[in-house]
């Protein structure tokens, strides 16, 4: 009897062991809770937000955020971009003449995160910001950040140094976020290739997105990266197997992405981009296991037309990652007029009349070829660059017009901090 008990215990132990091997760790966004004073504030007007954009010296909090940071407003969040992969995503509001700031910080390469809270006093820049004075005398952001839980236990202070250089702001440089804004494996609070991620990514500093496009069995282009429905990207359910085997309706009812979202149709995702964001570039990464360019072209056309009607600066490029995709693309009528992005050679770019050349970053900065592409009036982007040193190298010494990365705040830091 004792032996039997021991053996059952052993089997139970092994079952427990196996249970521990799979799920990714989730990192939740720290929050100050509902009693925060921030709930009393009013939103900051657009003109006031612009005053806050700039380069700041870090006079407290250097151990985490370095000596200088870039503050840049997106549609609804203030992003603090640091040199080494730390970033802050902040909400900002005004209360009388004080600017109240609240949010969280995160380190992109691991799961370290914490709460952040700060303010700008009236005589330390608050008044200039509220009055939208384009030349603020000084801005001092005082506050603190927490390294554990929701407790603030470290001082934080940013002092305004200078605005972002006008030549940098005027230069078209795309900060493209991977997989609609960020990867599931980076333990973000929303799923990759979801509409929720498109909504989230501007807070990370991105100005464009790359999304993965696949075709369902009934011919609907959807956003999904892997070849199969799996527990890496989706919540565990009764359905698994190649995504191309399923109809869109089946995916809608039977599958949820890892944070509970639906797998979006390309059309819905692009409508969200044009109607609800300020993103300017969309790079459609065509997963051509089942050719889908024919189905994607009318959607691209419809959304670009809508963007034109709304006066939105939006580019949507069909990605051509392989010779098969090029052949599929070139079999479409008037393909030369369709905005596309070619990942292969410069000759292929010319052949397909792609607007963008997008070589893999491991091929180097390729200055001569980039110059040749620029000479033809096209753009050059590189992908997928995540290492701080390489991002710095490509921005400071390369001539690319955009970087596809999982960490747009790093690319943003090295781009916006440039003086020209």
């Amino acid at each position, binding site marked *: 009897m004792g032996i039997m008990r021991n053996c059952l215990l052993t089997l139970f132990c092994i079952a427990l*062991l196996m249970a*521990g*091997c*799979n*799920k*990714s760790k989730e990192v939740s966004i720290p929050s100050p809770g509902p009693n925060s004073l921030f709930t009393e504030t009013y939103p900051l007007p657009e003109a006031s937000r612009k005053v806050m954009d700039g380069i700041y010296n870090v006079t407290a909090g250097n151990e985490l955020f370095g000596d200088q940071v870039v503050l840049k407003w997106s549609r609804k969040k203030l992003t603090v971009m640091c040199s080494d992969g730390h970033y802050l995503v902040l909400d900002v509001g005004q209360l009388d003449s004080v600017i109240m700031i609240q949010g969280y910080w995160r*380190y992109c*390469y*691991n*799961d370290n995160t914490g709460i952040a809270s700060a303010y700008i006093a009236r005589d330390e820049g608050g008044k200039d910001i509220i009055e939208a004075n384009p030349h603020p005398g000084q801005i001092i952001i005082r506050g603190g950040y927490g390294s554990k839980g929701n407790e603030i236990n470290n001082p934080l202070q940013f002092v305004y140094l200078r605005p972002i250089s006008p030549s940098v702001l005027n230069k078209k440089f795309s900060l493209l976020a991977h997989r609609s804004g960020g990867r599931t*494996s980076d333990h973000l609070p929303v799923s990759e290739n979801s509409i929720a991620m498109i909504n989230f990514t501007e807070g990370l500093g991105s100005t464009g997105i790359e999304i993965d496009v696949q075709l369902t069995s009934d011919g609907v282009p959807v956003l999904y*990266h*892997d*070849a*199969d429905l*799996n*527990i*890496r990207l989706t919540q565990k359910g009764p359905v698994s197997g190649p995504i191309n085997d399923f109809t869109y309706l089946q995916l809608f009812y039977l599958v949820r992405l890892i944070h509970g979202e639906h797998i979006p149709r390309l059309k819905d995702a692009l409508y969200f981009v044009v109607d609800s964001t300020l993103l300017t570039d969309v790079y459609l990464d065509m997963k051509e296991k089942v050719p889908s360019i024919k189905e994607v072209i009318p959607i691209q056309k419809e959304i670009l037309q809508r963007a034109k009607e709304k006066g939105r600066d939006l580019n949507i490029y069909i990605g051509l990652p392989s010779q098969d995709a090029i052949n599929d693309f070139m079999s479409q009528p008037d393909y030369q007029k369709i905005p596309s992005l070619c990942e292969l050679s410069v000759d292929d770019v010319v052949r397909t009349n792609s607007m963008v050349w997008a070589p*893999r970053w*491991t091929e*180097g900065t390729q200055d001569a070829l980039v110059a040749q592409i620029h000479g033809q009036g096209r753009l050059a982007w590189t992908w997928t660059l*995540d*290492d701080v040193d*390489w991002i710095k190298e490509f921005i400071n010494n390369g001539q690319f017009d955009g970087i596809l990365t999982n960490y747009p705040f790093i690319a943003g830091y090295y781009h916006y901090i440039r003086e020209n």
Partner: protein
Amino acid sequence: MSVIHRFLLITTIIWAPVILYAQQKSPPVDIGKESMYFPHHFQKYHLQTGLGFDFIKLPFDWVENALEAPLLDLHLTFGLPAGFSLEGNLNTILVSNQVSLGARWNYIHRNFSFNLGYDLGYSLGIMNFAGFKNTGMTLIHYPNASIGFKTKTLAFTFKGEAVIIAWGQMKTGEDLMSRSINFFDGMTGAIYLEQRIFRKKILIIGFKDNYVKYYWPAWMVFSTFDRYYHIPELHLLWVL
């Protein structure tokens, strides 16, 4: 080669010695002396060889789709005087390979024993993707210690080791993509059970948990992550 064909090939290799030795008579065995991981005074100037497989499960954060294949594991021990021994290992999965060599000092007290050791590992991975020859190389320190316990027929060994990357680099073609020097990569803990299976032949079953940031067999999927992951390994080794 299909998945099933690969699996059958591997199991055939495992089964080869089974067929070879079947139906022969068995001499007595002292498990404490014939084992490979259990710390003991290895027979002087005698080379012992073990061959088997390591089954690994990589974290989902690293692999886009399932990438699970066993590593071939060649394990060698060589007895030296005064309780010392040498230990060598070759692990390969074709695109990832590691050779390690180290020394142990072994101490025995009745049915218990322990050793202290140090291994130096060199891993080399070569893989073609995106039209380029990609290579990954690392030099790894493995300081380690083991505690053993034996019964008449079984030997148990608990082994712990630190993993310190002395030097590592990844190249695409001739271009250097990344270089790392002297960083603490993590720890491993392992349990090995050794017992006779047939005649004087020993079969070793082991479980190892790697708690590391960089895991050499998966060099090609190593990214910029600065996180520790648990990577379990199941070892099956036949002492030849």
